[in-house]
C-alpha cells in the first residue's frame, strides 16, 4: 500500500537508497566520470544546458550522471540549481557575427562571403553502426587541418538580404529596454518576442521539432529556407559598474539559425522575406532550426495571418513547450487523488441509483 496510514517517511527514504543503487548499475563495470560525460556526451550535455537554461558543461554532465541520463530530469536539476544563483548583472549582448566559426552553412546561396564550412556534422554520415566503438577500439581521431584558414569576416545571411531591403527589418523596440526575464517574472499574453525566444530556447527539443514539422507539412503556412546555420564560439563580456569597461568572462558555444520565409506583403508593406530566429547553447542544430521555424510561425499576429494552426498560437506553444513544467504536471497524476476520486465514486453511484429507480418507475407505470 503506497499510502499506508502510517509509515510513509521510511518508505520515501528507502526510495532514495534504491534509486542510488539503480543509478550505479553493475558495480563490476567502472563508474562513469563527469569528465567522460562532458567530453563524450556533448550533445546530451548541450540539450540539458538548453532546457535547463544554464551554460555549465560540468554541471550538465553531473546532472546527466545523477539522473541516469534522463534528459528532462537533468534539465530540472539544472533549473532548480540555477534559480538559487545570485545575479550580479547581465552580459553585453553576444555578437554572433564575430563567432569563431566551426560550422556555417547556407541553403539559400551556393556560395557566399566566407564560404560554406561543413564542420563536424552527422549530416553526411551513413547511419551504420561502428562496431569498433563497441569494442572500445577507437583510433585516436585525427582531422587534418585545412591548408588555409577561414575568412575573418563571415557576414550573416539575413544581413546580406537586408542590404537590398528584401528582408524584414529587425529593429530593437523603442529605447531598447532590458529584455524580459521569464525566470523572474510571470509571462503575460500577448507575449513579446523576447518572451517568445526565451521560452523557445528552454523549450523541449522534441516538442519544438514536432511543431516545426507540423508547420512544414501543412499545419502552418510558412515555407522556410535555411538562410544560415552557424556554430562556434563567441565571447561573453560584462561591464562591471565599478570599472565601466568591458571584460571578457570567457566563451560559450552557440548554434544560431536564421530561417528565411516568404511573405506576400500587405497593404502597408511591400512583399519581402521574413525571418525566424533560433539560438541554442552548444551544438544543437535541430533545436535551433525548430526554434527558428516556430519563431516565424508565431509572428502570425504581427503579419495579420490567420492563426489557425497550433504552431501559430502563442499560448499553445509557449505554455506547453516547457518540458520541466509539463513533466511535473503530467507526473503529478502519480500523487494520491483518492479524496477527489471518492467524490466521483459517490456521484456516479448516486446517478446510477437514481437512473435505476427512474427506469423501475417507468416500467411499473407501463405495466
Amino acid at each position, binding site marked *: 500500500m503506497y499510502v499506508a*496510514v502510517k509509515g510513509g517517511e521510511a518508505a520515501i527514504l528507502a526510495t532514495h537508497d534504491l534509486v542510488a543503487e539503480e543509478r550505479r548499475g553493475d558495480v563490476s563495470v567502472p563508474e562513469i566520470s563527469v569528465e567522460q560525460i562532458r567530453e563524450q556526451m556533448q550533445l546530451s550535455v548541450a540539450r540539458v544546458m538548453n532546457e535547463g537554461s544554464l551554460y555549465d558543461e560540468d554541471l550538465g554532465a553531473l546532472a546527466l550522471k545523477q539522473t541516469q541520463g534522463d534528459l528532462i530530469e537533468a534539465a530540472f536539476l539544472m533549473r532548480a540549481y540555477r534559480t538559487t544563483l545570485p545575479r550580479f548583472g547581465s552580459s553585453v549582448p553576444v555578437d554572433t557575427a564575430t563567432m569563431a566559426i566551426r560550422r556555417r552553412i547556407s541553403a539559400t546561396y551556393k556560395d557566399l562571403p566566407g564560404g560554406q564550412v561543413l564542420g563536424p556534422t552527422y549530416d553526411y554520415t551513413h547511419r551504420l553502426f561502428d562496431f569498433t566503438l563497441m569494442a572500445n577500439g577507437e583510433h585516436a581521431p585525427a582531422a587534418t587541418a585545412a591548408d588555409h584558414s577561414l575568412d575573418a569576416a563571415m557576414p550573416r545571411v539575413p544581413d546580406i538580404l537586408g542590404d537590398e531591403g528584401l528582408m524584414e527589418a529587425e529593429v530593437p523596440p523603442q529605447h531598447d529596454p532590458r529584455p524580459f526575464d521569464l525566470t523572474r517574472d510571470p509571462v503575460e499574453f500577448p507575449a513579446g518576442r523576447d518572451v517568445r525566444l526565451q521560452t523557445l530556447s528552454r523549450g523541449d527539443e522534441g516538442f519544438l521539432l514536432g511543431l516545426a514539422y507540423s508547420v512544414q507539412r501543412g499545419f502552418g503556412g510558412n515555407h522556410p529556407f535555411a538562410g544560415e546555420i552557424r556554430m562556434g564560439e563567441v565571447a561573453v563580456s560584462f561591464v562591471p559598474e565599478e570599472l565601466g569597461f568591458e571584460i571578457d568572462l570567457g566563451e560559450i558555444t552557440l548554434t544560431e539559425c536564421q530561417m528565411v520565409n516568404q511573405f506576400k506583403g500587405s497593404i502597408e508593406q511591400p512583399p519581402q522575406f521574413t525571418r525566424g530566429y533560433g539560438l541554442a547553447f552548444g551544438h544543437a542544430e535541430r533545436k535551433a532550426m525548430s526554434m527558428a521555424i516556430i519563431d516565424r510561425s508565431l509572428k502570425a499576429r504581427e503579419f495579420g495571418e490567420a492563426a489557425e494552426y497550433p504552431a501559430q498560437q502563442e499560448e499553445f506553444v509557449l505554455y506547453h513547450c516547457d518540458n520541466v513544467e509539463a513533466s511535473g504536471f503530467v507526473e503529478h497524476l502519480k500523487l494520491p487523488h483518492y479524496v477527489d476520486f471518492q467524490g466521483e465514486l459517490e456521484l456516479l453511484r448516486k446517478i446510477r441509483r437514481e437512473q435505476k429507480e427512474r427506469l423501475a418507475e417507468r416500467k411499473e407505470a407501463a405495466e
Partner: protein
Amino acid sequence: MTMLQHDPDYNFGYLDEQTKRMIRRALLKAVAIPGYQVPFGSREMPLARGWGTGGIQITAALIGPEDRLKVIDQGADDTTNAVSIRRFFARVSGVATTEETSEASIIQTRHRIPEKPLDEGQILVYQVPQPEPLRKLEPSEVETRKMHAWAEYGAMHVRLYEDIARFGHVATTYSYPVMVNDRYVMSPTPIPKFDNPKMDDMPALQLFGAGREKRIYAIPPYTKVKSLDFEDHPFTIQSWTEPCALCAATDSYLDEVITDDHGGRMFVCSDSSYCEDRRAKGHIGKELAVAEALDYVDRGEGASHDA
C-alpha cells in the same frame, strides 16, 4: 518523526529574501482583491511543478522560526508528498512541524480543508494545480482574464445547468467553483465540494499558490464565499450512509479503503489528525479492530506522534 536541523547551505525558508518580498507583495495584493488571480514571478523549485511548488513558495515566504507547520495531502499528514514537503521545510527552515490542526500556525494543504474549524491567526495555504476556474470553458488566458474583468460568468452557469439537465445533478464533485466576496469566480482547488462551505466566513486567512501557472490568490478572514448554484437546485455536499469505521464520526469526509479483493471496503476519515484525535477521546468505530489487524493504523495509537 525525525526532526531535521536547518541546513546552513540554504537561506532560511529556501528562497532568498528578495524573492520572499516579491511573493509577499503578490500576497498583499491578493488579500486586497479577494479571489483575484495575481501573477507572480514563480521560481523554479527543487520539487516538481504540479507537486505543490505554489503552496511551497507561499509557505516559504511566510514562515518564521516561531511557526509550527502542518502539511497535509488528501487530509492526511503521512501521504507521500506531504511527508516530502514537510521534510523539505524541516531541512530549509528547521521549524517545528505538527500533525495537530489546532497547534499549527501554517497549514499547507492539497485537496482538503481540515475538519476541525480553523481559528483567527492560522493560515491555510492551498496548493493549486489550475487556478483558472474558467479554463475548461475557455483555453485562452487572454480571454479568461477578460471574462473575470467584466465578471462575465454566464458560461459557467450554463455549464452547471447543462449538468443538471443531463444528470440531474451538477456533475462537479471537486474544484467546485465559488463566488468570492460577490465579485470573482474562483477555483477552490481540487478540494471536494464537501469542504466548500468551510471557506465561507472562515476566521483563518486562506492563501492559494499556483507555481506552474504563476498565480497567487487569497480569501481574507471572514469573507463571503458562495458555491455557485441555482435557487431550484441549491448546492449540496457529499454524504455517506455510514460513519467512519475507525472513529465513528458522521460529520467528516470519508475515504473508501479496499480491504480485500471480494468487494470488502471500509469508509474512514480522510482527515487523519481528526480521526486520531477522536479515537484518543474514546470514540471507537466498528471496524477499528479490523483496521488494526490489517496494520492500517497503529495499535492503541495516541492523538499525536509529532507534537
